[in-house]
C-alpha cells in the first residue's frame, strides 16, 4: 500500500507504566498505529484515557524517573524507546515538537517571549543573535500576533491566553519539525479563540508540510481536521479508523457514547445531553476484561473477564476492540 519512506511514525505495542506508591500504573498499553507524512491524526478520549501520556511517550518526553516504556516508536526512522536523552534532544524541535495544553503554564513567566522563541533557533540551529531575533519576529507574525516586533519583548503575563497559545505554537514551529504533537491545544481557551487556533494549526500544517497529531477530548475538534482518529480508553486503543468511518460506522459502544455526549447544533433546544454513566477505571486496579465493561450497557460476562483485542471492521484500516460491537451501519449492502 504505502512504502516505508512515506511512513513518518510507526508505533508498535507501546506501553508506558509509571511506578507509583500504589503499584505499577499502566497509563498506556499495547498501542500500535502508523502515520503517513502530511497526515493529521486525532487521538480522542476522556480525561485520564492516556492521550497526553501517549503523545509524550511518542516524543520520548516522559518523566525521566519512575517510568518504564516498552515497545517501539520509530519516528522518521529513529527509535525513540530506550533512546538516550542526548539522542532525543537531537530530534526534539527539528523532527518533532509539541504544542502544550495550557498556555498559562507552559511559557516561562520570567522570560521574554521573544527569547523563548529564539532560544531554539540559536541553540538548535546555531543562528546568530540578530538572525534569530529576525526569525522569531517572523514566527510571531506567522502565528498571527499583531505588532510582532513590539511583542517580541513582552513577558507571557502581558499576553492573553489565545496570544500565549500562539506563542507556544511559534516556539514549536521554530525549528520546522516534521511532526507536530498538539496536546489539547485549545482546552484552556475561549470557544471563539479555539477555532482561531485550530484553523491556524491547519493552515500552518499545509504551509509547512507537517504531520500533526491532534490530541483532544472534543470530537468536534477532530471531525473536520483529521484524516484518521484513534479512540483511547484506559490507556488502550479501542477504535481506530478513518475519521469518516469512526464518526459514521463506529462499532465500539464507547465511541458512540463519546459522540452522543457532544452537543450538536442539529439537536432541538433543551435536548438533554447524553452522558456516559460512571467514571474511567482506576488504572491501578484494571480487570482482566474490557475496561469499559462496567460502564457499558452491552456488557456480558465475557466482557468483564476477557479483554477484547482490536479486530478489523468492514472498512479498510478500521478496527475496534469489542466483544459485542454495534451492528455495522453499512447494513446488508456491505
Amino acid at each position, binding site marked *: 500500500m504505502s512504502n516505508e519512506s512515506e511512513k513518518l511514525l510507526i508505533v508498535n505495542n507501546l506501553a508506558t507504566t509509571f511506578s507509583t506508591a500504589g503499584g505499577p500504573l499502566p497509563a498506556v498499553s499495547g498501542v500500535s498505529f502508523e502515520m503517513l507524512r502530511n497526515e493529521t491524526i486525532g487521538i480522542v478520549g476522556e480525561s485520564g484515557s492516556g492521550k497526553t501520556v501517549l503523545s509524550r511517550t511518542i*516524543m520520548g*518526553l516522559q518523566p525521566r524517573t519512575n517510568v518504564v516504556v516498552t515497545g517501539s516508536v520509530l519516528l522518521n526512522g529513529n527509535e525513540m524507546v530506550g533512546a538516550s*536523552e542526548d539522542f*532525543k*534532544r*537531537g*530530534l*526534539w*524541535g*527539528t523532527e518533532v*515538537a*509539541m504544542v*502544550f*495544553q*495550557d498556555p498559562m*503554564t*507552559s*511559557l*516561562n*513567566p*520570567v*522570560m521574554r517571549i521573544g527569547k523563548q522563541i529564539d*532560544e*531554539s533557533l540559536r*541553540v*538548535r540551529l546555531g543562528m546568530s543573535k540578530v538572525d534569530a531575533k529576525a526569525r522569531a519576529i517572523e514566527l510571531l507574525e506567522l502565528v498571527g500576533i499583531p505588532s510582532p516586533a513590539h511583542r517580541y519583548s513582552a*513577558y507571557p*503575563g*502581558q499576553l492573553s491566553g489565545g496570544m500565549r497559545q500562539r506563542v*507556544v505554537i511559534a*516556539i514549536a514551529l*521554530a*525549528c520546522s519539525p516534521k511532526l507536530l504533537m498538539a496536546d489539547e491545544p485549545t482546552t484552556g481557551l475561549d470557544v471563539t479563540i479555539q477555532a482561531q487556533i485550530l484553523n491556524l494549526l491547519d493552515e500552518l500544517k499545509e504551509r509547512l508540510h507537517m504531520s500533526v497529531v491532534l490530541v483532544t477530548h472534543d470530537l468536534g475538534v477532530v471531525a473536520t481536521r483529521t484524516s484518521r482518529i484513534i479512540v483511547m480508553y484506559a490507556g488502550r486503543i479501542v477504535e481506530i479508523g478513518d475519521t469518516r468511518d469512526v464518526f459514521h460506522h463506529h462499532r465500539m459502544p464507547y465511541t458512540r457514547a463519546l459522540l452522543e455526549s457532544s452537543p450538536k447544533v442539529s439537536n432541538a433546544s433543551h435536548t438533554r445531553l447524553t452522558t456516559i454513566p460512571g467514571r474511567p477505571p482506576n488504572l491501578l486496579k484494571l480487570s482482566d476484561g474490557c475496561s469499559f465493561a462496567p460502564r457499558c450497557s452491552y456488557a456480558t460476562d465475557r466482557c468483564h473477564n476477557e479483554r477484547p483485542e482490536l479486530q478489523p471492521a468492514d472498512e479498510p484500516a478500521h478496527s475496534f476492540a469489542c466483544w459485542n460491537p454495534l451492528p455495522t451501519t453499512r447494513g446488508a449492502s456491505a
Partner: protein
Amino acid sequence: MLRYVTRRILMLIGIIFIISIGSFYLIHLLPGNITVVIEGPGASPANQAKLFKLLGLNKPIYVQYFVWIKNVLSGNLGTSFISQTSVVSTIRAAFPIDLEIMVLSQVLAFAAAIPLAMRSARKPDGPLDRVLSAGSFTLLSVPPFVIIVLMVLYFAIKLAIPNIGPSSYVSFSQDWITNLESLSLPAITLAIGSFVLYFRVLRSDLIATLQEEFITMARSKGISQRRIMWRHAFRPSSVALLGAAGINIGGLLAGGFVVQYLLSIPGLGYTLISAINQSDYLLVQGIVLVVAVGVVLINFTFDFIINLVDPRISRE
C-alpha cells in the same frame, strides 16, 4: 515599574525617619547621667547643670531631635566625649572592614550554594541531595560563635597557619594578602550560615520549579539540561533566595559583631561593643543609626533586584 520604585522610595524615607527617631531616643533611654560620664564622678552639681544646659538637654525633646537630625543630615554625628574623635571618622574607618567581610562571605556562600542546590534539585532524595541536606542541617544548628572558636582552635592554633588567628588584622591598603588571610576565618564562618540558608531555600524552590510545565516545554525544545537549569529554572526559583539573602545580609551586619569581637577585628561590631563598654553613647548611637539604615537599604536593594528578576511582582 517607575511607580513601584517611587512608592518603595517613599516607604524607605518613612522607615529611615522612624529609625532616626529610634536611635535618637536611644540615648535618652540609657540609664545614668551623661554629664557624670563627661565630667567624671567628682563634678559639682553646678558644673553638671552648666554642662546640661550647654549640651542643650534642657530644651524640649523635639527641638533636640531637630537639632540632631540637621547635624546628621549634614554628615555630623557628633564628637565622642570619650575619645574626642568625630563619630563619623570612626565609623568611616571601621565600616569598610564589615563590608569586606560581608562581600567575601556572600561570594563564598553563593558560589557554593547555587551549583550545589542545582545538583541536589536535579535528583531530589538522591545520594548527593541526602548528604547535602543532612550536612546543611547539621551546620544550621551550630551558631557562628562556636564555629569561629573551633576554626581558630584548629587552623590558627593546632595547624598554626599564620595571619588567620585573633589580632592579626591588617588593613587592605597596607598588605592585601595578609588582610585577606586575617579576614578568612570570619568570612568562612559567616559564609557557612548563609550557605545553609541559600542552599535550602534554592533547592526547594528549584525542585518545585522543575515540576512546572514550562520546564517540560523547555526540555521539548531540545536544549541541554544545563541550559534548562540556568536559563529556565534558576531565575523563577531565585525570588525566595533573594528575599532570604536581603534579610540575611542585614542580619550579618549584626551577627558578624561577635565574630569580630572574638578575633579583635576593628570593624563596626568590635567598635560598637567597645563603645558600649566605655559608655561612649554618641558612638553607639552613630553605629546603630548607620547599621539600621544599612539594613534597610540592603533590603530595599534586594527588593529591587527581585523585581528585575521576576517582572510579575511589580505588575501585581
